[in-house]
């Protein structure tokens, strides 16, 4: 009787999870597997696709020999590391600041979240307008305060294009990291701070001995999430620079898109996507192994 009930339970549970599994399996897992396979064959949209065959890593060899793969890999890492570092530092600092009793705290908190609900493509437009060389407000303000002498073509400059895109990406991603860190902060019991204050611990002592260690698990999750998010950041880069100037912002996502939907070479595009997949997987495994959760 009990086992029959349990079998029915299992059956019911599986029936419930079936629709989601089918949709995700057919439209995410299958395509990902297929694109990994496509990385190893000649596959262009221009040619008749009967009989695609193994091409001895030709896609990878091409991408390595032209230097494009290495360039994109390097730029992606720069982008991800820069954005995520800035995100974590700023989010922890701001969460600590806005967790104090200050006037208008609740309004401030919700207003800080607005960039998060702004569509990514529109975030790209807003920053393009701010960074516009002749009439953009960034050049105007920076010249006014004397930080630059000549107007800079931010998005057309090899030196500045990547940092500019990173600023926009930071702006769009910050609120999410911030609310998660803030929620983690609020789950720390107040008594800990109170007893630390009674023992005479100052503000910075409390931050570094209580807040940061107890936020460890939250920060760990948030790093992983924002690294993965940053790897996927296609709309922003594509809209703001299209990967240029001269490949200076050509992340793996942009290179993969360009190879497949501009050059119509799906094999090479898939090869790039495969490198991207392996990079993220290796990072995630290493990160979760090296930085473990801790119980308190």
């Amino acid at each position: 009787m009990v086992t029959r009930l349990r079998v029915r339970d299992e059956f019911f549970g599986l029936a419930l999870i079936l629709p989601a599994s089918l949709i995700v399996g057919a439209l995410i897992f299958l395509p990902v597997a297929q694109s990994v396979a496509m990385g190893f064959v000649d596959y262009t949209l221009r040619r008749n696709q009967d009989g695609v065959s193994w091409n001895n890593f030709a896609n990878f060899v091409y991408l390595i020999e032209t230097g494009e793969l290495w360039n994109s890999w390097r730029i992606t890492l720069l982008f991800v590391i820069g954005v995520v570092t800035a995100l974590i530092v700023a989010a922890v600092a701001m969460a600590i600041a806005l967790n104090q009793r200050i006037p208008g705290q609740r309004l401030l908190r919700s207003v800080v979240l607005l960039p998060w609900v702004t569509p990514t493509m529109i975030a790209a437009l807003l920053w393009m307008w701010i960074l516009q060389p002749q009439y953009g407000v960034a050049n105007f303000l920076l010249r006014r305060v004397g930080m630059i002498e000549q107007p800079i073509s931010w998005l057309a400059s090899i030196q500045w294009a990547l940092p500019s895109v990173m600023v926009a990406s930071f702006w769009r991603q910050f609120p999410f990291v911030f609310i998660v860190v803030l929620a983690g902060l609020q789950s720390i019991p107040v008594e800990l701070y109170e007893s630390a204050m009674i023992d005479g611990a100052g503000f910075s002592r409390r931050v570094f001995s209580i807040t940061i260690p107890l936020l460890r698990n939250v920060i760990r999750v948030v790093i992983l999430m924002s690294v993965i998010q940053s790897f996927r950041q296609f709309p922003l880069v594509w809209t703001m620079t299209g990967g240029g100037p001269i490949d200076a912002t050509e992340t793996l996502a942009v290179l993969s898109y360009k190879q497949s939907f501009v050059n119509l070479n799906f094999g090479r595009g898939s090869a790039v996507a495969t490198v991207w997949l392996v990079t993220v997987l290796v990072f995630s495994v290493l990160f979760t192994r090296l930085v473990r959760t801790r119980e308190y």
Partner: protein
Amino acid sequence: MAVGDSYRSVRHALYYATLVAFIALMLFPLYWMLVTSFKPNIEIYRIPPRFFPDSLYLDHYARTLEDGYFVRYLWNNFIVASITTLVNLIAATLAGYSISRYPTRITAVISFGLLSTQMFPVVGIVIALYTLYLRVSMLNTHTGLILVLTATTIPFTTWMLKGFFDELPKSIEDSAFVDGASRLTVLTRIALPLAKPGLLAAGLYSFMLAWNDFLFGLTLISSDKLRTLSVGISLRYLGEVSYDWGQVTTVAVFGTVPMFVLFFLFQRYLVEGLTAGAVKG
């Protein structure tokens, strides 16, 4: 004593100054979008720029609403995001409930699989989907777009909803079982009504994600009539050389304001739903 006080007030002032500067940085782009959209072109390209406009100029708005394209992009986006949300909620609710209440080894594998989709390269997915849709004639249809957007949002909403079901006291459901209710009745009559805030949060989240889509709409839709918001903006209002910034900021306002309205109406649910998973996980 006096020295200590002034030191403290300097520190306070610095603290507030940094706080204000940072918040200004976060909000300025949105403010600037709004201000620019209400300026005539001659004002937009004025140096020095006017930070507080003295009048509201509505021509960009009238022009955008009347051009015959933009309203359609907005409508298409609304339809695609709404149906995506609906399908997503049905599938994700059932899946989240299953993982929470009927855990087996298979559901454990599936839920891990759902989480791991976040790591997959989106462009790789789109490349393979393109060839798949080409074969089954689903390219350039809203159905195809809705399906893939549903698939990409299900993993996150399933986890959100699983978190909500975990929070619900199981004892209520157990007593219903004792009274002889079937599993399906317990799900639809007891668990679902209790999980309403979670459903709301998950629904909003998937709506926002679908509204935000760019890559899938860009690659899988080719006719202008079916185009969604972000792609429509990018292909119609961003020229090769110079942009009409008055109109660009106006379409940006139209694309953003619906999200702001939803956010301010429901932010409590949204924030709770989002943070629940991440903080515990």
